């Protein structure tokens, strides 16, 4: 069995207990029953199960949690948070960990972030999702040019793919909204 020096990680555990509390997640309340993992549809894909991610935080092993693929495989289906007998809200915990993981640049699945960025850029530019723009940007940046391109013609044949960007008639309001959010981030 691996041994871990816990006195060194004690302060990280305390910090993250507070940090999570600010977002309504009560890490210290968890008594490790594992109900979250039992209901998790993605548990088999994760390097640490949901219960284990909570335990990592309790022990202050934050880096392991931030670098895990678990936080990116989590689909936010909310099953864990619905069933948790201690109301820990593990789904929210995963979300907060995703924010921090990308902030620190340690995401185990960078392609997920590339996808979400391409999605939001397409929304910023058009007010609504323009799938062609999103897919092109996503495939170029993830260096996976042919990812899902077989679906394009299938969609088009069924009249389910718009080739022209949507025009929503908002006088650039949505773009301004994005700008104001960015200004608040100071970036």
């Amino acid at each position, binding site marked *: 069995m691996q041994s871990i020096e816990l006195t060194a990680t004690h302060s990280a555990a305390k910090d993250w207990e507070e940090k999570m509390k600010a977002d309504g997640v009560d890490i210290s309340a968890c008594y490790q029953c594992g109900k979250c993992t039992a209901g998790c549809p993605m548990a088999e894909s994760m390097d640490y199960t949901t219960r284990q991610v909570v335990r990592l935080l309790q022990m202050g092993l934050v880096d392991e949690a931030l670098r895990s693929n678990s936080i990116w495989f989590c689909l936010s289906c909310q099953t864990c948070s619905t069933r948790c007998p201690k109301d820990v809200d593990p789904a929210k915990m995963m979300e907060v960990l995703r924010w921090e993981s990308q902030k620190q640049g340690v995401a185990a699945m960078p392609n*997920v972030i590339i996808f*979400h960025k391409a999605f939001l850029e397409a*929304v910023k530019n058009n007010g609504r999702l323009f799938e062609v723009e999103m897919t092109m940007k996503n495939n170029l940046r993830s260096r996976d040019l042919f990812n899902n391109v077989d679906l394009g013609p299938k969609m088009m044949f069924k009249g389910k793919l718009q080739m022209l960007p949507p025009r929503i008639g908002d006088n650039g309001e949505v773009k301004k*909204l994005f700008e104001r959010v960015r200004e608040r981030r100071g970036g």
Partner: protein
Amino acid sequence: MKIAYYPGCSLETTGIEFHLSTEYCAKKVDLELWEIPSWNCCGASSAHTLDHLLSLALPARNLAIAEKEGLDVAVPCAACYTHFKNVEAEVRQNEEVQQEVAQVIDMDYHATNNTKSILEVFVDQVGLNAIGAEVKKPLEGLKVACYYGCFLVRPPKLGHFDDRTEDPQSMDDLITALGGTPVEWPHKTECCGAGMVTLSPENGLPLSYELLRAAQLCGADCIAAACPMCQMNLDLRQEEIKKKYKADFNLPIYYFTELMALSFGASPKEIGLQKHFVESVSLVAEIGRKETA
């Protein structure tokens, strides 16, 4: 009855049948859908992953436009619905959030109006009696697995209309009112794999496969969905699932509004049934024959 209507991006493209059938049904039951002018994307899971404030502001802009008109908002897409509900909750709970959101969207917004799923609007507000009265072609003999997915019922703290979280009944009641037979099955609220089906099929596809398998094992002829993401995963990916798992389910995945429109007398074509990837017209071609014979 008048309500603001937020179609959401999917209903213009991949889920256009949901839009067509919703509009058809609304007209039949005198439900006026006021489409929010210049509505924008809710930000979906992308905004949630990348930027919390953005994930509040994008839905809020739509809600604020409807609030100005004094209208509640009907949302067909279950994902948009949960994002809207989430903004409502945060704005109501926290004055600082309310002010920050109002500044970012450059509009007044106090969350005095309510987001409603289109299922809720039909079942609770229009009512099953009024809906039953419009049925011209009952779904006789059609066995339907009602699939609610994640966001119509979870997380329960957002206060969903169908609060039987692990075993919701509202869609089952609706199918019964349309003359169909809802089947008992254990996967009503299981996740379809969402974006992971696209991002990493190896990890996401098994979830869609399990859903199809459960529905078939429980004797369903088809699945009724309430979310364009779920519908697309189960319909579009069925061919891939067939190859990978050697399982030929051949299960049509209808939006519940399509089944409602069909029973109201809509032709498959006018609500876009031919746009499905799994052939979905022949299963419902026979409905109502007894009634008209």
